[in-house]
């Protein structure tokens, strides 16, 4: 008995230690790397600050705060394309963050681009946390499955049978509603968007071949929707609903690696 308790205690301790280490990795309250980047930003070394933020992102991953800081640095360093890209990434991670939207709209205004704030329902549909949602769906499905299995086992207890019936009759419409919301949100979220990062502007081409007709330009920093791909060209729809082809090198996806473009900034 003593041995068992000791083993259980060690297991719990190990779990705590693991959780603490994960927290320390992902939710730093203060760290030297971030401080150094912010210090460089404060001293006006914007290119250096942008580089440091990029290093942190490469090491730890993306977060709304890191992308926001990187975007601020790129804005100050006069790189509107990269600034807009990282503001869009920050907004993708935190659609309801008013600060991110404020700086993004200000940067867009300075770059001569139309405002593109989300409407409330867009922010709502984009703010869904898919991990939580998946857990909710799994919970709902598991409860229903539990009720079905319990019913199949013909348990003698009337209370249990009533519970199973309740789970079934409440869980089924809930599941249908969740499934509808899930599909609707995925349909809305599933656009592939990119930001023009070519200096000044990207050439909009009539066809996806070298030497193709130029039919216009899209300014640096503009957000476009990618409709298709042909070799190293993307067929895009601009915000003014015009279509055309642009070179892969002129475009960076908001969701990094979402169309196997070159590595994220």
């Amino acid at each position, binding site marked *: 008995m003593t041995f068992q308790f000791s083993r259980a205690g060690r297991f719990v301790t190990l779990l705590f230690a693991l959780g603490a280490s994960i927290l320390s990795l992902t939710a730093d309250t203060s760290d030297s790397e971030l401080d150094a980047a912010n210090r460089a930003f404060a001293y006006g070394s914007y290119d250096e600050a942008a580089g440091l933020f990029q290093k942190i992102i490469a090491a730890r991953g993306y977060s709304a705060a890191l992308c926001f800081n990187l975007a601020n640095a790129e804005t100050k360093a006069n790189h509107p394309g990269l600034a807009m890209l990282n503001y869009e990434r920050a907004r993708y991670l935190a659609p309801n963050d008013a600060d991110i939207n404020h700086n993004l709209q200000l940067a867009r205004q300075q770059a*001569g681009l139309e405002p593109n704030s989300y409407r409330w329902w867009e922010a709502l549909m984009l703010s869904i946390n898919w991990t939580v949602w*998946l857990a909710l769906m799994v919970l709902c499905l598991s409860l229903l499955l539990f009720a079905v299995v319990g019913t199949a086992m013909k348990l003698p207890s009337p209370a249990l049978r009533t519970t199973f019936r309740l789970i079934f009759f409440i869980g089924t419409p809930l599941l249908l509603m969740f499934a509808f919301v899930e599909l609707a949100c995925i349909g809305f979220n599933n656009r592939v968007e990119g930001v023009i990062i070519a200096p000044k502007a990207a050439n909009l081409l009539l066809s996806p071949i070298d030497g193709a007709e130029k039919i*216009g330009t899209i300014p640096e920093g503009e957000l476009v929707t990618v409709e298709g791909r042909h070799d190293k060209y993307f067929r895009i729809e601009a915000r003014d609903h015009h279509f055309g082809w642009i070179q892969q090198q002129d475009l960076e996806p908001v969701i990094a690696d979402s169309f196997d473009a070159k590595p994220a900034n």
Partner: protein
Amino acid sequence: MRILSRAHGLGSALCAVALSALAVLPCLAVPTLSQQINPPEATIGDDVQVTFVIQNGSGTNFNLQPVDGLQNGQVSTSTSFSFQNGSISSSAAKTFHLIPTRAGDFTIPAFEIHLQDGTVLHAQAMKLHVVAGANGAPAAPQAPGPPPTANPSVPAFNPNGPVVMPPANNAPPQPVPGNPAPSAAATAGGNAVPTESDGRPAKVFLVITPQTTDAYVGQSIPMKIEWFIRLDADAQQDSLPTIKGSDFLMNNLSVRFHEDTLAVMDEGYRRESWSTAISAPKPGDFPLQMERDSYWIKSINPARLNPFVNFFPGRPNLAHEPIASNQLTIHVHDLPDEGRPANFTGAIGQFTATATAQPDTVAVGEPVTLHFTVTGQGNFDYVRCPALTADPAWKTYVPSSKFTPQNESHTQGIKDFEMAVIPQKNGTVPLPQSSFNYFDPATKQYMTVPITLPSITVTGAMAARTPPPGVVTDSTEGTAPAEAGFLPNRITSGWTKTSLIPIYRQAWFWIVQGGLFAALVVGLVFLILRSRTKRDDGREERLRRQHSMALETDAMGTAARNGDALAFFVAARHAIQLHLSTRWRVNPESLTLTEIRQRDPQLAETLEPLFVQADEIIYSGGTGRGLDLAQWERHVRDLLQPQTQPA
């Protein structure tokens, strides 16, 4: 995948009756005549088609009067019936193919057409101009992109007219795979229809009719897609035609197809048709072909022993294969460099552009809204807002746009643009010059449409301004960030994610939910099935008793034939006990005469002689000499009949 098929057998007869009725119905409407000569100008040796279409009338027994210099060629007729918007209409078309043998102006004289119901229609005279062609006047160059009438062998598509088959720049549409290969090419409307070995037209075929086979890169080519299925093979479909290969982009077939019924080579057909547009992204000669995953009735399983076969025909055997259309070669040309305007944005077609400006009086710094409207036909995806010349007196903003299509293929429509401009000085300030550029494939030239904009009266003095709501300045301004206004950096990094790709794009997201959902469905199906099949606890026991009773009955018969009274009565009494125990669900050995009497006195009275005789034989050990075992056997077998039921 659920396929609903239509009936065969009686269905064919009904179709024939329906078609016959349809031939009568149009007589109720007023017959009309339309006529066309195509092309009105030709060269010697060209195929000139003179087509007469009689709407709502029947009677194609007429001919053209001979004209000197025009050689009569093939004559073809066709009839079609349309069901649209709940009304029925018919049209009969007769096409005369004439071949000019000399140059000059010809007049095909007017004449009268007498219909079967006595109506007389008057065909007007038609003029034809014939030039010498290659040996005389130079032939028209191959113009890429002009409308289809540029090709004299391709009649203009008339959706309400006779069957229009593919342009003759390739082989006829392929017949149904698996069917006999076409043995002959019949004609309909002057074009080929695939036929089977028995001479009937193919059950299913697909025809595409682009407006032109010469186009430019990015040009929208309107195209008609028609899918035909013979009425006796008609089945419901669950897919749309798709374009083969990746050389062309096609508009989505989101609009529901048009459906009608018509006759091709005297066979009834159902036709589904779509209007769409294709475009080629690069120059070259590319094959254009479509296909549709099609179902059709291959044969009908006869409903055996079904006296109502005429009303409930057998189940149809469906064939299912992709049906390829006729294949065309589209010649895609690069846009010419010569004469290309600086502001050309890729618009190809025929367009007109207009503009208005509101209001005509503003204060300095207040916006004026320019409303541009571009109408016409062409590739509206590439129609952008007309360009304004740079003018320091005006600051321009990024325009917004809205497209309103006017046809199914989205090649005709109106595109509206709204652009805000802000005067930078006061006085009477003329708006900047504006123009809209496009490439006209018919004339093969870049066209510039000048747009006149009025002058605006600007009042007041220049002051600090803010952009109008909803618009921001264009990119001519510097992109250096303002020192004020930006919110500061975050001091914590927050939760991080190694990948931005949402988890719903990963397979396991769907596998987890799909697995649980599948398990749930399986569990529900199990519960439903179990509730439908109640468990029968006594089934095995009942079967065992029935088997035992059959054995005892056989033993009884054998004993009766052998004259073995002891064995006979043992078997007979046990058989009766088994028979009654099955009904009363009791142990057969427990059923004595006393027990039976308690349950059913009347039955006990009937059985008493048998039981008494059995006891006597068994306990006396006697041989039962003198007993008529055959009669006893008949008696017992009567008792074992199902109608001998205990109470």
